[in-house]
C-alpha cells in the first residue's frame, strides 16, 4: 500500500514537472499558430494524470502548470495568467466530466482542447468587456479538434507504455 502511495506521489510530481516544461517549451520554441492557436502540449501531462492517477491529480497537475509556468515566465497574476487559468479551469472541468462518463482518451483530449479555447475566450470577453472577441471562437473550435487529436494520440500511446502503479508481489 505504501509503495503504491509513493509511486502515485512520484508519478504526480513527474507529471507536474512535465506539464510545466512542456508548457514553457511550447511557448518558447513553437508559439501560437496564426497568432492564436496553441498545440497544448502541456495538456498531454494533464490527460495522463487524469487517466493514470485520477481526477484530483489532474487538477493538481493543471494548477501547477498554470502557477509555476506563469511564475517562470514572469507573468503571474497578469492578464496572460488569468487567460491561461480560465482555459485550464474549463478544460479541467470538461475533461473530468468526459472521464466521469467513461469517454475514450482521444475524445477526452479533444473536448479538453475545445474547452480550453472556450475558457480563454470567455476570460478575454470578461477582461476586455468586449463580446466581439467571440467572433474568434469558431476558428478556435475548428482548430482545437486537430490539436486535441494530436495530443490525444500522444497521450494514449504513452498510457499503453506506463507500468502499473500496483507493487509486484515479492514471492
Amino acid at each position, binding site marked *: 500500500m505504501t509503495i503504491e502511495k509513493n509511486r502515485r506521489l512520484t508519478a504526480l510530481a513527474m507529471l507536474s514537472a512535465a506539464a510545466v516544461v512542456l508548457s514553457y517549451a511550447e511557448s518558447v520554441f513553437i508559439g501560437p499558430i496564426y*497568432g492564436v492557436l496553441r498545440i497544448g502540449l502541456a495538456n498531454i501531462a494533464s490527460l495522463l494524470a487524469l487517466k493514470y492517477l485520477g481526477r484530483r491529480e489532474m487538477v493538481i497537475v493543471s494548477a501547477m502548470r498554470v502557477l509555476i509556468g506563469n511564475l517562470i515566465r514572469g507573468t503571474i497574476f497578469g*492578464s496572460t495568467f488569468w487567460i491561461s487559468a480560465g482555459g485550464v479551469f474549463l478544460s479541467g472541468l470538461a475533461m473530468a466530466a468526459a472521464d466521469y462518463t467513461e*469517454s475514450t482518451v482521444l475524445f477526452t483530449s479533444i473536448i479538453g482542447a*475545445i474547452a480550453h479555447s472556450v475558457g480563454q475566450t470567455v476570460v478575454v470577453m470578461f477582461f476586455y*468587456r468586449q463580446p*466581439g472577441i467571440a*467572433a474568434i471562437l*469558431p476558428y478556435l473550435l*475548428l482548430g482545437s*479538434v486537430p490539436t486535441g487529436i494530436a495530443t490525444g494520440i500522444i497521450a494514449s500511446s504513452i498510457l499503453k507504455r506506463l507500468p502499473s502503479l500496483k507493487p509486484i508481489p515479492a514471492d
Partner: protein
Amino acid sequence: MKKREWIILGVIVLAAAAALFFLHQRPQKSGYTVAVQRGDTIVQEFDPLKDQTFHVDGDVGGLDVEVKEGKWHVIHEKCPNHVCANMGWMGISDTILPITCIPNNIIIYLKESPE
C-alpha cells in the same frame, strides 16, 4: 471513439462551421468604422477605406496600425509574443476577427457596419 463521442464532436464542428459561414456573409461597402480600444476606452476610430498609418500608446510601448484598401494590421509592436502582428491583415470583406494585443491592453475591432 464511441458513437456518442462522434455525435458530440460532429455537432460542435457543424456549429463552428455554420458560425464561420455567417461571419463571412458581409459584403464590402463604405460606412464601416473600426475602433481601437485601450482598456475600457476607445482611443481611436478609423474608416478602413482611407489608407493611413498611426501610432497607438499601450502598456508595453504601444503599436502602429497600418490601414490599406479596406484592411488593417498591426506593425512595430514591442510585445514578447508578437501575437497581434502575427494575426496579419484583417478586412471588412473577409473577416471580422478582432486584433487583440494583451500586453498592450489594446483591442482593434469592427465597431459599425452599414445596414
